Structures are given as C-alpha cells and as structure tokens.
C-alpha cells in the first residue's frame, strides 16, 4: 500500500492541505489512515476543528453526527474532494480510495458495465466479476435508468470495489433507499467488506445502521470526535445504542421505540 501525506502549502496565511500529495513509496499493507489536527473553514466558521482520527487497515468505522456537524466535510477531506476549502491539518490516506455517494452517481449515457470500469482500461472481466458479486450478473448491458434505486446503488458499490480500494468512503450511501432495500444493502455491504477488507468510513445519520455495520462508531460534534463506541461481544447493542443517542443529544429513548420518537400514548 502506498501512502501519501497531505502536502501542506501556505496560501493567504492559511495552511491548505492538498490531498494529492507526494507518494512516500511502498509501505506495508498495515498502514493506518491518519488524520491529525484537521481544520476546515467555511468563511469564519470552523466545520472541522482540529480533528484527530485513526482508522486501522480493514476496520469498519461509522461516523454519526447531526446535520451540519461536519460529517460530509470530513469524508470529502479524506476523498481529496475539498481542494477549494480553506483549512489546515494532515491527512494520510492510501493511494487507492473509493467513494460511494448518496446518489449512485452513474453516468446515464454509459451502460452498467462501462460505469463500473470507468477509467480502468481493459478491466472488462474484473468489471463483470464485480457486478456478479453485487448480484447484478447479466445486467452489464443495461442503462442505469433501467435499474431500480437499490440496483443503481449496487452498481456504485461494484464500481468502487473493482478498484480494490484500501479505503472505502461512503457518504450516506443508503439514505435515499426504502427501508427494506436498505436492510438488504446492509447485508451486502457487510459481506463485501468481509471479502475485500478495505478500511471503511461510513457516514450515516442512522444509529441502527451504524451499529449493524461498524466495528467502531464515532460521533462528530462541533468539528471534533465527541464520542466513540466500540462494538464487541462484551456489550449489548442496546447499551451502545443508548450511549450513542445520548452523545447525539437525543436523550433517553424508551426501549422498544427504535426509531427514536417519543411515545404518543400516556
């Protein structure tokens, strides 16, 4: 795995971290993803405020936070998509990073297979395999418009996995899907993760999704990591869930009401 550090350059008195920094040569597959002192400013407002984060190789991390807490800003910083945003800090990510967006973002004028292997020359066979992995074998020649929302998002997953990423960034990838499809996609994502073992950063606003999928759940608040919960056999999901909700400022939610709404009766 080749890692590269975010190159720091000075611009109008503000240090701007550019993503496409120098490659620091081949290093072991065990290099973690590192973020140190990451600050991102929109005007005067610091959306990320000296954030530190480390993700181990092959670790599945979910990132929770209220709207405007900077979840997407962090993800975009890791993806190197924030070249025009002012800020400072160090970002160390592997060379091979894939992004899955909330919208499947398939090119409507390219057939499904061509979308999967976009920018990869001669990867037709790999593309087919990847489509088969997400359960879409036989749909290679379909137009994206002919697929359902869930199928489109599966194509987007195939497109990111065919690149064999060491880091998979997912920005509320299931946010636009209906509840049933979302549950199926959870199973699929977790299975693909077990097989390919990239490090994953999943941005979501769904506490249950985070608990169902991740090894570790972070809560982002005011531009910093405000809480962290590791999911292991020692603790029940209910326990983790209520602590996460407290960190999110939702407060006590009665057991049995999994959607976080207060009881209407009584």
């Amino acid at each position, binding site marked *: 795995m080749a890692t590269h550090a975010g190159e720091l350059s000075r611009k109008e008195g503000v240090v701007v971290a550019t993503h496409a920094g120098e490659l620091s040569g081949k290093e072991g597959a065990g290099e973690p993803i590192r973020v140190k002192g990451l600050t991102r400013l929109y005007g005067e407002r610091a959306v990320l405020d000296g954030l530190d984060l480390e993700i181990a190789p092959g670790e599945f991390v979910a990132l929770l936070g209220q709207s405007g807490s900077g979840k997407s800003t962090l993800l975009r910083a890791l*993806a*190197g*998509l924030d070249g025009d945003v002012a800020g400072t800090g160090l970002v160390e990510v592997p060379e091979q*990073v*894939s*992004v899955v*967006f909330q*919208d499947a*973002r398939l*090119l*409507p*004028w*390219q057939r499904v297979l061509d979308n999967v292997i*976009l*920018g990869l020359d001669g990867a037709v066979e790999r593309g087919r395999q990847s489509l088969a992995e997400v359960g879409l074998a036989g749909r290679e020649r379909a*137009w*994206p*418009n002919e697929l359902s929302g869930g199928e489109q998002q599966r194509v987007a997953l195939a*497109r990111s996995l065919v*690149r064999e990423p060491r880091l998979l960034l997912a920005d509320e990838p299931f946010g636009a899907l209906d509840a049933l499809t979302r549950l199926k996609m959870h199973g699929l994502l977790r299975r693909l993760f077990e097989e390919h073992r990239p490090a994953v950063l999943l941005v979501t606003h769904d506490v249950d999704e985070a608990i169902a999928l991740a090894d570790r759940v972070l809560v982002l608040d005011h531009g910093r990591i405000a809480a962290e919960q590791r999911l292991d056999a020692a603790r029940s999901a209910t326990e983790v869930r209520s602590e996460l909700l407290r960190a999110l400022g939702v407060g006590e939610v009665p057991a049995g009401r999994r959607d976080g709404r207060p009881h209407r009766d009584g």
Partner: protein
Amino acid sequence: MTLVASRPAVDVRTRKRRRLRPGPRIRLGFLAGPLLLLAIWAAASATGLLDPRFLSAPWTVVTTAADLVESGRLQTNLLASVQRVALGLAFGVPLGTLLALVSGLSRWGEALIDGPIQIKRAIPALALMPLLILWLGIGEGMKITMIALGVLVPIYIHTHNGLRSIDSRYVELAETVDLGRGAFIRKVVLPGALPGFLLGMRFAVTTAWLFLVVAELINATTGIGYMMDLARTYGQTDVILVGIVLYGLLGLFSDAGVRLVERKALSWRRTLAS
C-alpha cells in the same frame, strides 16, 4: 365446468376525469396539414380560380420536375447544391464543436471565444455577404464559407450550453475515479454535451439550406437557387415551384436524418417524448 377468472359483478363507475393529455398519437398525422394545403391548391387550379401564370397547378409542377430530371438539369443543380451544403457542414460543424469545447472547458477559452461568437450571432448573415465577396470572390469558396459560418453559430451555442449544463456531480465522480483529461472528455464531456450538440445540429442543417439559397440566388451558375433565378427571368412559376419543393424536401430530410441519429445516440434517455 371450467374455471375462468371472475369479472367484477358490479360495473365500477368512477367520476370521469377531464383528460388534459393530447390523447393517443394519430398515425401519419404529420401529413394531414400538408395534404390539406395540397388539396386546396389542386382544387383552385382545377376550377380555374388560380391563374397558372401566378401559380402553376400541382400536376404541372410534377411534369416539369419529370422533364427537368429527363434533361438532367435537376440532377446537376441538385448535386451542386448538396455539395455546397455538405462542405459547409463539414467545415462548420467540427469548428463550432471545437470552439464550444475550448470555451466550455477553460475560463480563458470562454473569455476569448464566447464574445466574438455572440457578436457574430447578432450580425445578419446577409450583412457579411459583401465582405465575403470582396475577400473570397464569387466562387465556391465564398458560398461554402458563408454556409460554414452560418452553421457554426447554432452548433457552438447549443453544444456550449449542453456542456455547461453537465451535472457537476459527474465531474466530481470523474475526479474520484482519477479520470485523465482525455478520458474525462470522451466519457463525460462529449456524451454529456451530445443532446445539446444534436439540437444544434438540427438547427444547423436547416440553417445550411437557408444560407445556400441566399448564396445561390445572388451569384451562381449551378445549383437549385440558380435554376430558380433563371426561371424567374423567363416567368416559369413551375420551375420555381420545383425548386421550392426541393428545398423543402431537402430541409425536411436532413432534419429527419438528424432526428434518427438523435434517437439512436440518446437511447439512454427516458424523456417525455419516449
């Protein structure tokens, strides 16, 4: 007894909704209007309401066309005209596309190119004619340049517009999958701008015939426009009508051709029309 799917016993009556859609398509409906016009024309000629010196009867136009084909005059002139349009398109379309690409993909390109094209658009084509004649003479070069310049504008405008309306999310996607500039243009920019380009193309083919008429009526020794201008001198309304019908048909066919390409090339689109 055989089992059949039972029909609902009660006839379900719902309040009839006002239909706001235009209703089902009429087969070959686009022919109705032209056919009606033709019928009125034929009736007026047959009853003598229409003086043949003012407007020849439709059947005279048909026999005149046959005569012109027999003598070979129609083919020679048609060939000359088609050649001019083809050459004008061959120069104008790639140039317009290239300018649109440069102007759409770089800020400097836009700064330098967009202004002059908008100015060119504002100048009536006929106003450029005297200058073109002074520069290029009255030969083929002038006519083809005239058509190419006319074609360039709609191609540029619509391709540029198509290019600028490509969703920025696709550009972001191209960045995340590390597309090179060449692949970006081939996979994202060109297909994304194709609907705009094809719309421009539809305007361009009709514009091309328009400019051809202008160029051929003024100074030519071949071409449909020349044939018509000659007929004017001799007062042959039938030959003039053959020319008009020919121009109409050529415009119609070129537009239909572009639309056919459009349907094939944009089959990925699900729109209101499909």
